[in-house]
């Protein structure tokens, strides 16, 4: 039993990291008042960027050097994801297009681009690099169960947790974070106080997308063993990430715990012996829990657990 639990939690943490990246990125964007339903697409674009980075790495280096391989994957993932974010930001912030429609279009676009260009990569180098992605701490085996649960993961897992903590501190403790939240709550107020609403929205969207994109690369190269893009269900994880934002009531700190819960629910059916149809039932659980959280926060009218007040609404200064 104990072994089963240890294995479950370890897998849950590893799987949850995919959701956590999307969740942290989307939280940052939503705190600036933009509802980005393009997160699944952005994660796909990020994964594609990761593939480009890894491929480029093997064109320059012959052996696997941990630092440079990770660095290449990080940089290119972020560039690709930010390009997706730039499209979204330009359409919604500059041109004031409808956020929901733009987001959904971005998702379709991102998934399509990844599947289309993803066919052309050299998958042998991918699976070689996967071993590097999974390696970070050495000698954790000596620490027994503790080592397994907490120290056996790849670098991206720890990066996700660090980013979640950093974003949480940024939003709640820094002045810039406060200004960003004011943009998401009431852009009229922010504007009247001399805060450049568009600048804040653009920054939040770009940085948020960069973070979310990392989830895609992490999934393909760590969880999926570098098996390429054609079978990777990244968009499905993207929607779970959006659900996790609601579940976490826009708090990245709770997002960390939520991601482990969501990850656990996702891997649980694979750890126990059940039929295929029952797996589908388990797959619904994260969404059902999110709905319950929504119902609870609405019923309790918890003022501090509500979405940003201007979420999804574009801002025009001279509107009357």
């Amino acid at each position: 039993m104990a072994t089963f639990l240890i294995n479950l939690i370890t897998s849950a943490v590893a799987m949850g990291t995919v959701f956590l990246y999307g969740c942290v990125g989307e939280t940052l964007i939503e705190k600036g008042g933009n509802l980005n339903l393009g997160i699944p697409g952005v994660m796909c674009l990020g994964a594609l960027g990761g593939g480009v980075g890894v491929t480029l790495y093997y064109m320059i280096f012959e052996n696997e050097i941990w630092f440079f391989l990770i660095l290449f994957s990080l940089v290119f993932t972020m560039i690709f994801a930010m390009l997706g974010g730039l499209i979204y930001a330009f359409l919604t912030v500059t041109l004031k297009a409808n956020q929901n429609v733009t987001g959904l279009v971005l998702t379709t676009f991102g998934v399509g681009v990844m599947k289309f260009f993803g066919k052309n990569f050299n998958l042998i180098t991918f699976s070689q690099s996967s071993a590097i992605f999974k390696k970070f701490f050495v000698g954790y085996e000596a620490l027994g169960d503790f080592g397994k649960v907490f120290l056996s993961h790849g670098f991206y897992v720890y990066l996700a947790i660090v980013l979640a903590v950093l974003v949480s501190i940024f939003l709640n403790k820094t002045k810039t974070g406060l200004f960003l939240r004011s943009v998401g709550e009431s852009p009229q107020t922010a504007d009247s106080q001399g805060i450049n609403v568009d600048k804040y929205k653009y920054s939040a969207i770009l940085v948020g997308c960069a973070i979310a994109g990392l989830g895609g690369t992490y999934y393909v190269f760590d969880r999926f063993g570098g098996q390429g893009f054609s079978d990777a269900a990244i968009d499905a994880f993207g929607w779970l990430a959006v659900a996790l934002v609601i579940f976490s009531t826009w708090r990245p700190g709770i997002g960390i715990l939520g991601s482990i819960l969501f990850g656990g629910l996702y891997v649980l059916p694979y750890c126990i012996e059940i039929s295929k149809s029952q797996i589908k039932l388990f797959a619904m659980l994260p969404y059902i829990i999110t709905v319950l959280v929504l119902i609870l926060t609405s019923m309790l009218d918890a003022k501090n657990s509500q979405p940003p007040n201007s979420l999804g609404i574009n801002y025009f200064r001279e509107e009357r």
Partner: protein
Amino acid sequence: MEKEIAIKLVNISKRFKNIYANKNVNLTLYKGEVLSVLGENGSGKTTLMNMLAGIYQPEEGEIYVNGELASIHSPKDSFKYGIGMVHQHFKLVDVFTAYENIILGLDRKTSKNTINEIKAIAQRYGFEVDLKKKIHDMSVSEKQTVEIIKVLYKNANVLILDEPTAVLTPQETNKLFNVIKKMREDNKSIIIITHKLNEVMEISDRVTILRKGEYITTLNTNETNEKELTEYMVGKKIDLNLERLRIQATQPILEIRDLNVLKDDGTVAIEHLDFYLRGGQILGVAGIAGCGQKEMCEAIVGLRKFKGSITHFGKSIVGFSPEKIKEIGISMSFIPEDRLGLGLAPNLSITDNMLLKTYNDNKGIFVDRTRGRKEAEDLIKRYNVVAPSTEVPVKNLSGGNIQKILVGREIGTNPNVIITAYPVRGLDINSSYMIYDILNEEKAKNTAILFIGEDLDVLMTFCDKIMVLCHGKNMGIIHTKNTNKEEIGLMMTGALDLTQVKKEEKYGIAEDSRLSEDEWKKLREEDQKNEDREQS
């Protein structure tokens, strides 16, 4: 001693689409004075001030700050020139604390000292504020305090207060005025936008009057009086070529006693209002915008909760659903400020909008579009609506035509009571007359009409009686032939309350009511019982 000029506006004009909100406005503000900007709704007071605050940009004209030409393109520029504005609808983030709201947009670093600095400002002007309290837990007056401190903390030397007393109790108003006086002693300049004459007289040194977007004059407060200010504010009476049908009015159709309605934010919209509508008579309602007109209309047609008694042909309609009220013949057409949004779906065609009103009569699950189209065609023909076809989205039509469709559709249901608010809002003369003609036709059919209007000239010529509302209170109901514009102006601003002056007159209680006083009493008791039950 010559006073120093803080701000000078020269020939400022601002257009929204093709309508001038401000046209060639001049204004001078001296250091250490309180200037009132007075005007009716839509006279462009707030727009003018928003240009100083950097929210809007003027199309023409110059702004001088301390004698130098200033270019204000954003609120940030405005702070740079030491201008701060407290908006009528507070610009505060509800889920933030007072402190967080105050430091919003601040460039300099915050430290422990910041709190002390804010506290020092609060103390100096006699504010009491809990900086750790969240805005959503605050009363209106507390929120205003935060707004003012916010502006002061940003080192504003010119403070603009937009209708600061509209939401305050008399005690809170007094407190605010003491603060304003202290700021004046500190050589700060204060602009206060208002339409309450008594406050103008009490607090300000000078008063600038705007009417319909244009600059009228500036007066020293101690050289003028409320009557003169009202005259400037409402203007001379204009003779309109409008006919007032004279027909014998019937017994009251709709009678309302002791109506109490709350606004969305829980503040009082209407209190203890009595009035009645006779068939073949138009009762006009005059009042500054936001004095409870909208809430009153919504209460009558069942869209808003209220306390009080409403009878229709002597039968209570309290607790009826909006559908039921429509069925018994009470129709409402309310034209909101943006014209779209209440009553018509902008993206749907004229036919579809006609169907919205009558879908209930439709048998079966499919929509009877032929009938809807026929109704739309009839309406277009009858009211000369300019529309390419019945299938164009309503939003593509001009304002006048949209309103004709809305009013026409409501009247098409053959109501016996018509409640119409601002039906000519934003219309040109010809379209307006078309609407007046429609209403006069209905009046001739012995329909009871409640007409909520903006233009006093129109109300004076067109209506049989006028009821004046001031902050949800009835200031009196008068026959238009027995009154004049100045009297109504004074009532609108609360300077004259006929219900207090002539206490013997029972305003809004019909002598030939369909119910005896005993029956009213019984009805009132029943309604009260229901209200109590609902509350518990």
